[in-house]
Structure formats: structure tokens, C-alpha cells
């Protein structure tokens, strides 16, 4: 609030999409992003594209982060990107979790802005989300 020149923190909506009950990774990522100076709007488990869109819209989020450990990324990743576009929201999607290397081109083609796998460091996570936010402008 000290002036209009410094940029406000990046706002990230973090969620698990669909029926996947493992949110430990998401909590770790939330902490990494917070410690990277970002504001994390944490939605947690069992979200739908609709609940995520509500949150992105109302929170004026810069990035959506979804976590996938159940091999749903090929279906749900593109569906999330499309749903945001349909809602008129120009907000990049970053996917974290288990995404096999051979699926990476498909993710990029679908418009997913970034993919973070196991072993990504806190610096990598923050840099990836920041890059997605910056690319949006």
C-alpha cells in the first residue's frame, strides 16, 4: 500500500480438480508460493471447473494451479483451460503432479501454461507460476 509503483502480489487459485483425495502436494505448493511472496487462494479438494471459475473471477486471480495425481490431466487439464476461456477469463493454468513426459506436448497444445512434476524445487515452482502470470501481462 506504500505506493502505486510496486506491483501487488501475484494471486493464485490452487485446487484439486475432480475425485482425487491427495492434497498433501497442494499444501506444500501453497506454502512454497506463499513464501515466494504470492497470495494463494486455497480451494483444496474435490473442486469442479465451475467452483474454480467462480473463485478465479471473484478473487481476480492471475494464475490457476491445479494438482493432478490420478492421470486425469489429459482430460481435465484441457477442460479447465477451455472452461476459463468460455467464461471470458484470460487466466493461465499451471498443472502440478504426475504428468508423463510424453504428455507434455499435448499439455502445451491444450494451452496449459506450465507443468510441474515431482522434485520441482520451491524456486522452480515460484518461477513457473510467476512466468505464467507475467506472460498474461
Amino acid at each position, binding site marked *: 500500500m506504500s505506493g502505486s509503483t510496486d506491483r501487488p*502480489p501475484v494471486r493464485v487459485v490452487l485446487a484439486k480438480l475432480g475425485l482425487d483425495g491427495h492434497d498433501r502436494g497442494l499444501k506444500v505448493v501453497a506454502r512454497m508460493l506463499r*513464501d515466494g511472496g504470492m497470495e494463494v487462494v486455497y480451494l483444496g479438494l474435490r473442486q469442479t471447473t465451475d467452483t474454480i471459475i467462480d473463485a478465479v473471477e471473484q478473487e481476480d486471480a492471475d494464475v490457476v494451479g491445479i494438482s493432478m495425481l490420478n492421470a486425469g490431466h489429459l482430460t481435465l487439464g484441457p477442460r479447465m483451460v477451455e472452461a476459463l476461456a468460455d467464461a471470458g477469463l484470460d487466466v493461465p493454468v499451471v498443472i502440478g503432479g504426475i504428468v508423463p513426459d510424453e504428455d507434455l506436448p499435448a499439455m502445451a497444445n491444450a494451452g496449459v501454461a506450465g507443468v510441474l512434476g515431482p522434485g520441482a524445487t520451491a524456486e522452480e515452482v515460484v518461477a513457473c507460476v510467476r512466468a505464467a502470470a507475467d506472460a498474461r501481462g
Partner: protein
Amino acid sequence: MAATRGGERWATARLLSLVERGGPLADEVAERTWALLHGDATVDAISGRRANRAHVVGVTGPPGAGKSTLVAVWTTRLVERGHRPAVLAVDPSSPLTGGAILGDRVRMAEATAAGVFIRSMATRGHAGGLALAVPGMVRVLELAGFDPVVVETVGVGQVEVDVASAADTVLVVVTPGMGDAVQANKAGLLEVADLFAVNKSDRPDAAGVRRDLELMLDLSDLTGHGRRRHDTRTDGWSRPAVVSTVATTGAGVDELADATDAHLAGLAAVGTLVARREDRWRAEVRSHVDHLLLETSRGVVSGLSVGTGAPAAVARELAAGLVGGAEGDR
């Protein structure tokens, strides 16, 4: 602004971000919001409510009391009753990194589905900034047609309590297992409450909490402390209502909704609603004056050379120069 008024949620969200960010653009948005809200509103002579002014409800209480869950079920109930509630949920930023984890939506999925507008907000380190930003954000939500506008803060810091207290109705949520009545006295939350919810009241020690709370309120009555200006009575202290709730089952939520409505009606009936809002307006002006003076003094002081005199004397001289003749009026 037109889109916000038209009920476009994305536009409301963008305006909230602008006001939250502060600076010249925020001031401009805030000024235009004010003009739109006050320019063409017809004032109801009896209630003092403007056609497009919302019931502002502050909700505070210790961490883990169930504020978010309770606000979620309460606002969902209000939607069922035909209202359009919005919630501004304030959580602390990390003082070290400036980041924050805003978790209120986790407990508010039901309310989101019902159509309640929820905005999470981090304190962003600047205590003064919060006091500047929140009233402006509340007005953006009013402009968008939301009523009531609920401001939820954790009741652990004077600023957070003050922010939630800048409301028409202040709800304090307490819960069993948070210490006895002596703790409740310490917390400093008793004085600001218009209304209490004893949440998690299905717990065995809930009756004890309620009894302790009532005792503390008896003592407030006795000493006269905790009396709020512009209360629902003009001839004495009006004792805050106490409602027992179980947010997770929805028990007591109807009573809570009735009690908040009754409080607003009570203020309007005795004519203190207008006075309360005028107090709030003055407090907001004061926050802005503090902020402007702070910024000015920072600039002036950073240019001083050490050793020009005793700090207090130098300060007095500077202050006299900054505010001109105004300091004599205080």
C-alpha cells in the same frame, strides 16, 4: 464501474483489486464509487438507509472459532431469504515474505454454490493500508448491489478488530475450548460486539462458555464499560444478543440471521444508524489523514541531519510547519 453496477462479477473483482492496491488510481475509483453511491440515492427518512446502501456486518473472533463456516451457512440462508450477500474475508499476510495463504473459501463452498460473492484479502503487511482499503472495497460491493456486505477478520490484532468493528453490526464468534471468562475479558472483543454467536455449541462445555459470557456482559452492564456509542438504545447500554450455533449442522443459523436483522432494525428505529455511519465516515477520514501525514513526515524526516536538536523538539517544530495553524485546534 457501469459493469459493476450492472452486476458483472468480473468487473466488481477488478475494482476490488484496484482499491485494494492503493495509490492514485485507487483513490479515483474510491471517489467515483462514493459519488455514485451518494449522488442519486434516495434516503429513507425513517430508517436512514439509502436505496443502495448495504447492511455492513463485521464478523470477528479467535482463530478456529468457525467464523468462515458460520458465515458460509448464514449467508447461504440469507440467499434463501432473497438477499444478495457478499463476503470480504481478511487473512494475515506473512510479515517476512508478503505472501499469504487465504483459506476461507475451503469452508465456503456451499455459499459459493448458492451465489454468495466471496473475496479473500490479505493484510499485505501495512496495518494502515487495511484500514484504508476495506471501507473502499465495502463500497464497491455496495455499488454492485450486494446486501449485506460481510467483513470477516481474525480477532487477533487491534487493526483486524478495528476493521471488523467499522460496521453497522458487529458479530463476535466465540467457542468452547478457548479458555474461561477471564480470557474472554482479555481478548478485547467483548467491547466491540453487538451480537455474539457461541459456535460449536453442541460441545459439552458450551453451556459454561455461554454462562461465562453472560456473566461478563452482566459486569459490562454494572461498570458501564463496553457501552457503545450510538447503540440500539439511547437511554443506556443495550445488551448484545447471544445466539448458540453449530455451523457444521446449521443449528441456530436462523436465529443468527434474525438477530442480525433485528440489530439493524433496532439501530434504525432509534435513529442511531445514521450516527454510527457518520462515526465511520469520520474514522475513515482520520485514517486517510494519518496516512497522508505519515507519508509526508517520512519524506521530511529522511532528509534531516542528526544532531539538530532533541527528537521531540524537532518533531514539534516540523509538525507545526506541516499542519500550519491546525494543530492548535486539537
